[in-house]
C-alpha cells in the first residue's frame, strides 16, 4: 500500500489540530488498508505494533468468552481509532478487532512511531494526550456498561 498523504491524516478527527510537521511524520508511518466483512484487523495476544484510523465502516472489539462465543464489547466507527496496545508494554492486542462490513482504514506503524516519540517529546506528549483522552472516554463508557443502567428501572 502507498504511504498516506498528510492531508488524509489532517482530515481525521483524531489528529485535528496536530502540528503539520507531526502530521507529515505520521504520514510517513501510515498506509491505507481495507478489510472485507468479517476479516480481523488484529487478534488478541498477537504483537501490537500498529493502530488504525477508521475511515469507513466499523470494527467490533471482541473477546472470546468460554461457553458464550465471542462477545462484542465495543464498536469503533468511522472517524475513530482502534488500538492503544502499541503504545504500552507488552505491546500485545488485548481484544480481537473484526471488520463489520467493508472497512477502510489507515494503519499507522506504532513501533516506528514509538522511537520518534522518544526522540521528540513534544510529539510523544501530544500523542499520549490524545490517546489518554480516548482511553478515558472508553473507560467511562465501560463504566456505564458495567453499571447496567437499563437493568434498574424502578420497582412498581
Amino acid at each position, binding site marked *: 500500500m502507498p504511504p498516506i498523504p498528510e492531508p488524509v491524516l489532517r482530515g481525521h478527527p483524531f489528529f485535528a489540530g496536530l502540528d503539520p510537521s507531526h502530521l507529515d511524520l505520521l504520514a510517513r508511518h501510515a498506509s491505507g488498508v481495507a478489510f472485507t466483512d468479517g476479516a480481523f484487523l488484529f487478534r488478541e495476544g498477537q504483537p501490537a505494533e500498529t493502530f488504525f484510523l477508521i475511515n469507513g465502516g*466499523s470494527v*467490533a*472489539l*471482541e473477546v472470546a468468552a468460554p461457553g*458464550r*462465543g*465471542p*462477545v*462484542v*464489547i*465495543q*464498536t469503533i*466507527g*468511522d*472517524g475513530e481509532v482502534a488500538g492503544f496496545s502499541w503504545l504500552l508494554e507488552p505491546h500485545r492486542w488485548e481484544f480481537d478487532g*473484526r471488520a*463489520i*462490513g467493508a472497512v477502510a482504514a489507515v494503519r499507522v506503524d506504532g513501533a516506528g512511531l514509538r522511537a520518534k516519540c522518544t526522540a521528540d517529546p513534544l510529539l510523544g506528549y501530544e500523542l499520549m494526550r490524545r490517546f489518554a483522552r480516548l482511553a478515558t*472516554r472508553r473507560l*467511562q*463508557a465501560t463504566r*456505564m*456498561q458495567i*453499571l*447496567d*443502567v*437499563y*437493568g*434498574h*428501572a*424502578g*420497582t*412498581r
Partner: protein
Amino acid sequence: MLAPGDVGQRAWIEARPWRVAAARQETSDTVTLDLTPSGAFAFLPGQFNMLSVPGVGEVPISISGDPADDGHVLHTIRDVGAVTRALCALRAGQRAGVRGPYGTDWPLAAAAGGDLLIIAGGIGLPPLRPALYQALAQRDRFGRVILLYGARTPDDLLFPAELARWRARSDVDVEVTVDTADRNWRGNVGVVPNLVDRVLFDPRAATAFVVGPEIMMRFTVRALLAAGVADDRVYLSMERNMQCAVALCGHCQLGPFLICRDGPVFRYRRLDRWLGIREL
C-alpha cells in the same frame, strides 16, 4: 388534539375503565397496551397517564403512541414490579383504570427551525415516540431530525420494525447502540452518550430531548454541552416516585419541583442544580 403548552395542574379525577384493544409483547419484559378511551381523549407528546389495576395499584406510564391517533392510546410498560406486572398481564378485552393526561409536554414548537435530537435509553424511547411522530408529521419545520437510541442488548430494543422504517427514511438519522451483544449483532456496541459525536448537527440551533436512566441522561447532557448545545435547549423527562399526579402528595418532589406538576419534561437548565444533589 391539545395545543402545545395546554397543560399544567389538573384536578383529581377518578380513574375510568378503558378497554384493552390489544396487548403487544415488545420484548421479554415489555408490553404495549393499546387502550380505547372511555370518552374523548387528547394528549401532548411527553405526557403520561396514571394506569391502575384494581386491588394492585397505580403507576404513571407515559403515552407512547401517535397524538394524531385518538382512537388508540398506547402505553409501553416494562414489568418491574407488582403493578406493572399486572398491567403487562392484561389481554384484549380486559380493562385498566386510566386517569390523565398529566404533565408537561416536549416543546416541539421551541425546537422548530433547528436540528432536533431525540435521545433515548431503554424504556426512555416510548415517552419520546409521540414527539418523533409529531416532528415527522411536521418534518419541514425542523433541520435534521436525529434519533439516538440505546438498550441493554439487541433483544431489548423496542419497536425494531419502526426503527428500521425510520432508518430507511432519508430525512431522519437513526443511530442505535446496545451495551452488549454477540457476534450476530451487526450494529453498534457502546453507550448512548458516545453517539452524540457520531452524528452531524448544528449545535448552535439544536434542541435535544433526552429520556433514559438518570445516569445515562447525565452523561448524555455532558456530551451535548461539550458539543456546543446550549443548556436551555436540552430537555429531560424525569422520573420520581409519582403517586397522585396532581401535586397533592409530594412524593415526586425534586428540589422545588413536583415532577407531576412541573414536569415530567424539564429544561435542563432548571434542573441542573438539583440533579447535582445526591440526597435528592
